[in-house]
């Protein structure tokens, strides 16, 4: 079990334990982060800030998850020499974060085993670091041709398959490079970041309410997932306390989104992954019914507007009855459809032993959500660091052992049942009161987190003296789960890759802010 922040600080000789943050010299940062991760506090966020205005240069922050909150270790790097010994050498989960920090701020992780570009593609001139404060968001950049190599395997009979970024189906852009021998995958790497929107840069200087519209659009299919984490971060900074009703409503919206998204994936995995069209037809039909209900309840099919700063969208008594009636139908149909799926030998044959993610890999990469839970990693922020009304309505953490596509499918199926239970429990005893309170003013920084349907969203927001956003860090669980392809792909055959891909169900847009 992980320890509390105070215990962790005491055990590892870290200063200022109660505040949840400790300043360290850059030389010991990696070693301390490693100590904490080994002590059972996984690394959840690694980000940089440009604090040259306050004469602190660039600051690297590493957040680990303790039993009672997030503990931050930070290290200020001089602006003229922003280097520090890489954390990735000791903690695998840091590898994409460090590459991203370099692209964004020019902070150099020395000794990183694979320090290629991540967010920037070939066309971005060297030395461009857009999240530095002296980089204007509307700067017109020349088109460069910088090297941006991908992994390559050589040998007899080995060949490369490049796929994307434009695909035959209507999906988001991503480039995948397979090195295969026959049909067997030897190595697999993705090149993403084709959908850059500049969210983190654009929200700087905006009021938290204005930034909400950007956060809602980070990943179109995970609106509540992102807005809830962001809203809680802003509320923590400003000292705004939502009502008990708002907290219960937030559980309702979060679980409705989870149910809808899981239903989609449970239709998509067999439907488009294995060609079992019955599941796609039924799954997407149920999803459509829920989306229509969302539109009726909050005025948006993907639940934009369900979470607001200081509260949540309210539901009337009639609406509650309608939710329960719709969910009763969904539950009945889902049971029937799942029964057909689980008893279909052909389908289970495709699912089982495909795309196995080992528990060790899941932990090393900091995997999140159903992908982690299907590989025995019992991580779920709703239960570990309860927020909203999750302390009252505690979910059971659903885990499976096999780590294959079948396990990820089962985790989703069981989580749907758990979401249905939570929604009914919330509606049964919905507290009276205002659904939203006005946002207080304030300054400072704080984390906000939410176990969204894809996994943990962890945000960090810093507001300046005027209450405007100084820096907003958003992590979609997809950012942590994309590199898992390198682990689960090899050993499988090429025609099974789309199924592995669908079983992880990742967002391109959420990864590329």
């Amino acid at each position: 079990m992980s320890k509390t922040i105070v215990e962790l600080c005491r055990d590892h000789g870290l200063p200022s334990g109660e505040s949840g943050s400790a300043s360290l010299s850059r030389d010991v940062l990696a070693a301390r982060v490693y100590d904490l991760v080994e002590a059972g506090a996984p690394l959840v966020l690694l980000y940089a800030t440009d604090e040259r205005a306050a004469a602190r240069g660039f600051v690297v922050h590493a957040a680990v998850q303790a039993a009672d909150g997030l503990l931050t270790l930070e290290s200020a790097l001089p602006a003229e020499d922003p280097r520090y010994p890489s954390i990735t050498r000791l903690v695998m989960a840091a590898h994409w974060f460090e590459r991203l920090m370099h692209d964004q701020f020019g902070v150099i992780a020395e000794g990183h085993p694979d320090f290629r570009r991540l967010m920037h593609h070939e066309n971005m001139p060297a030395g461009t670091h857009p999240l530095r404060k002296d980089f204007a968001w509307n700067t017109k950049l020349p088109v460069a041709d910088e090297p941006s190599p991908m992994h390559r395997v050589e040998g007899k009979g080995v060949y490369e398959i490049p796929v994307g970024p434009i695909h035959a189906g209507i999906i988001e852009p991503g480039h995948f490079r397979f090195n295969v021998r026959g049909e067997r995958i030897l190595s697999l790497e993705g090149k993403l970041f084709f959908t850059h929107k500049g969210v983190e840069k654009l929200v700087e200087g905006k009021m938290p309410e204005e930034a909400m519209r950007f956060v809602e659009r980070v990943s179109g299919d995970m609106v509540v997932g992102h807005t809830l984490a962001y809203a809680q971060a802003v509320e923590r900074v400003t000292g705004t306390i939502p009502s008990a009703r708002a907290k219960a409503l937030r559980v309702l919206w979060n679980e409705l989104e989870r149910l809808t998204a899981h239903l989609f994936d449970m239709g998509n995995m067999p439907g488009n992954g294995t060609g079992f069209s019955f599941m796609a037809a039924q799954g997407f039909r149920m999803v459509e019914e829920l989306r229509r209900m969302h539109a009726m309840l909050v005025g948006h099919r993907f639940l934009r507007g369900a979470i607001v700063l200081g509260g949540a969208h309210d539901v009337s008594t009639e609406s509650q009855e309608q939710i329960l009636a719709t969910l009763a139908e969904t539950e009945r149909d889902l049971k029937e459809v799942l029964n057909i799926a689980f008893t279909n030998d052909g389908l289970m044959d495709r699912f089982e032993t495909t795309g196995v993610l080992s528990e060790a890999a899941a932990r090393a990469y900091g995997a999140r959500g159903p992908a982690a839970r299907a590989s025995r990693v019992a991580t779920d922020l709703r239960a570990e660091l309860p927020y909203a009304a999750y302390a009252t309505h505690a979910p059971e953490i659903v885990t499976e052992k096999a780590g294959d596509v079948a396990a990820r499918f089962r985790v989703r199926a069981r989580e749907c049942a758990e979401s249905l239970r939570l929604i009914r429990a919330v509606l049964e005893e919905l507290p009276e009161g205002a659904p939203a309170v006005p946002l207080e003013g304030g300054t400072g920084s704080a984390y906000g987190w939410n176990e969204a349907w894809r996994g943990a969203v962890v945000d960090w927001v810093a507001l300046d003296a005027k209450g405007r956003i100084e820096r907003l860090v958003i992590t979609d669980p997809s950012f942590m789960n994309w590199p898992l392809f390198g682990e689960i792909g090899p050993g499988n055959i090429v025609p099974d890759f789309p199924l592995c891909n669908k079983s992880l169900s990742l967002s391109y847009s959420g990864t590329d802010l």
Partner: protein
Amino acid sequence: MNLSSLTMLLAESAAVMLAAPLVVGTVHLVKARFQNRRGASIVQPYWALASLLRKEMTVPEHSSWVFRFVPYVVLATTIVLAVVVPSAGIGAWPAAASNIFLVAALATLGSVFLALGGMDTGSTFGNMGANREMTLVALAEPALLIVLATLAFFAGSANLDGIVAFFAAAPWRASMLMALPTLLALLLVVLAENARYPVDNPATHLELTMVHEAMVLEYSGPYLAALEYASALRLTAFGSLFMNIVFPFGIATVGTGVEMLAVGVLSLVLKLGFFALLIGSLESLLVKMRFYRMQEYFTLAFLIAFAGAVLAFAHTF
């Protein structure tokens, strides 16, 4: 007035060639209905072909004459296949040429050229699809030949016309039970030869899982229309062969009355409709198999075909 060989040839060829897109359209409609969708009209494939014919054709820069040659070869071999396979009737002139080995060779020739077209572009997907297709053809061939040989043995004739005539002479007699394994193996081979479930998914948009679709990925416009039409025609040809053996009713014969031709064409349409229903249902109820399970599928097809052959011999002696 009696049915002449030429009338029969023209009528049945026209029927099969006109009906081919309709078979595909019916399969699509059946699948849509299984998914609770209304689905497109069954004549949609005709419009799709017409619009492809009007479209501009893009030929990959680094492709050779092989790429441009392939659609003609594939279309030509499939048309010959469709003409020689008995559909509405038997006894017409090309029946003399419809030797079982010719049919197997025509089917394979089409596959080989399709694979060449896929490889000629130099694109990874084309090569991947060609690789897979050749693996499947090599696996399917033994089962196909044993099935055809067993049918020939039953009928005492190596001609498809003779085979169909044998079954039509006394449909569903008791000894037909002996032919059941062979017919089942024939169905498995027909599914594989036409890139249907559980071997290939003709409706997929996932490049990495494609076999047939990967080979035609670079084709566009009229070439693509030719290939799409050839694949519909191939399905129809195999469908009429399968149905004429399983349901050998209403088959016209050269030399009988002209009115029999109408009966033959009408029953062909009914048979193809049933065949499309069968394919559509199978594709809605089955899951596509893992590619590495294909050898098991074909081993099964081979064993069933072999069992059918043994039964046929045992029955005779």
